[in-house]
């Protein structure tokens, strides 16, 4: 067992080591102006500097908090809406075009309007993240729910289950996997939208850090910001996958 754990760890590490090597390789190959690619060790040094003296952790916290709240609020609304659309086919044909209309709008394009209606405070950023999470989540939910087979509901009915029992004991367990998938998709989309949301006069946050660094052409800071976004997103996804694996042990193909 120990050997296999160590091997899995090394296998997981290998692509990262490869990416760092490639990074050095590109820098030293001479094809690209080295001043445009800060060396990995310089980025690492910058990371430590920002961490110790510039409050990088606070940026991480501010962004994570925004993403977390945006996703939680977005999914809280997406779950019932997606459920109803998936459950009632007629509602779906009626709402489908509208959802696809709004889903196609890039959040960045909405920023001017969001500033007009919600100002430049925290609420405005949350609105953008909420928007992105909601539409990502609602699609996953309704696609998933519309594929629930009526068989299990019929079985429960023939065993004597009432409406409420069917909802609690059959529909909820069948919906949980779709809620978890919706959360994962929304989390990915929300991180992707974060920088856009922090375009709105954000003082702190990883998106703001990147925006400000670009004004002064601080490439190493931009790299630190990007890597931090990737890392936090990865950690959140891993936590979610753990939860999924725990909740969905019964699935044919376990998640994670």
């Amino acid at each position, binding site marked *: 067992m120990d050997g296999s754990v160590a091997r899995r760890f090394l296998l997981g590490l290998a692509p990262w080591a490869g990416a760092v090597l490639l990074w050095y390789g590109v820098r030293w190959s001479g094809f690209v102006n080295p001043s445009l690619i800060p060396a990995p060790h310089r980025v690492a040094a910058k990371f430590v500097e920002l961490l110790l003296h510039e409050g990088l952790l606070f940026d991480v916290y501010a962004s994570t908090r925004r993403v977390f709240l945006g996703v939680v609020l977005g999914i809280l609304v997406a779950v019932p809406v997606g459920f109803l659309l998936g459950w009632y086919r007629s509602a779906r044909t009626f709402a489908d075009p509208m959802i696809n209309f709004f889903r196609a709008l890039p959040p960045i394009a909405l920023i001017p309007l969001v500033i007009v209606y919600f100002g430049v405070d925290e609420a405005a950023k949350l609105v953008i993240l909420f928007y992105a999470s909601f539409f990502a989540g609602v699609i996953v939910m309704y696609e998933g729910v519309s594929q629930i087979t009526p*068989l*299990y509901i*019929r*079985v*429960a*009915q*023939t*065993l*004597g*289950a*009432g409406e409420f*029992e069917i909802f609690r*004991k*059959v529909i909820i*367990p*069948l919906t949980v996997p779709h809620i978890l998938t919706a959360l994962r998709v929304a989390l990915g989309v929300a991180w992707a939208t974060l920088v856009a949301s922090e375009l709105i006069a954000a003082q702190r946050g990883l998106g703001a850090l990147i925006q400000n660094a670009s004004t002064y052409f601080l490439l190493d800071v931009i790299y630190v910001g990007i890597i931090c976004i990737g890392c936090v997103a990865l950690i959140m996804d891993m936590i979610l996958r753990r939860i999924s694996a725990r909740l969905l*042990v*019964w*699935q*044919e193909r376990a998640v994670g």
Partner: protein
Amino acid sequence: MNIANSIHRAQFDRVSLEFKTPKGRLRVVEDVSYEINDGDFIAVIGPSGCGKTTMMSMLAGFQKPTTGKVLFDGQPVKGPGPERGVIFQEYGVFPWLTVKENIAFGLKLKANHVPLAERDQICEHYLMLMGLADFANSYPKHLSGGMRQRLAIARAYAVKPQFLLMDEPFGALDAQTRANMQNLLLKVLAAEGKTVMLITHSVEEAIYLSSRIVVVTARPARIKQIIDVPFGYPRDETLQERPEFGELRSHIRELVMSEYRAQQAQLRPASFSE
């Protein structure tokens, strides 16, 4: 219950059912009448896709007849209920529950009021009977097809329905498992005395298990013939070697095959009434 004697357990009274399709009305069941009495084991046999399952579905309460009446205990069937246990062709074992939780599902429902103390005992009984005891805490993903089938049967039996509706329950099983399941069914019926409506396309299965066979035509399903099976219970596999069994089998097989040929002929021209 004073007029119980004059009321059949279940009754199809001039039942027809039509589906609306884009091409027009599709008649699936046409003018079907027969009764099922307490203790009967009715097998419904006919070519696949003829509307047998639809017939059962109406008695289970999932579909309403277009004309005619489907009665249970003298009352029109309004919806599904625990007094009519259904074993579905696709099993419908709940994948998110363990084997034991699947069996306990019906016992925990309000409609069945099974006292807490009895639930465990009933679960254990059916786990043993169906040979699932070693898998009590496994999820269905770890079970073979035959075991899932047994689980579906155990779950239906556990709420003790007086009436069982079985839709080709052994259709997907290999010959050996199928024979075992049939014998097990006969054993349970002998012990618990239930009324059964079995949908099947196997002539041998119909004769071996049932007391009366309803042969239905190709779509729309009409009654071709109702045949009393002249063998008493208990039955065992030696029955299948008796000459009377063979004669009855040839007779029914001929009926079913003629309908099968009719169905094949039907497939070329459109089978819609309008």
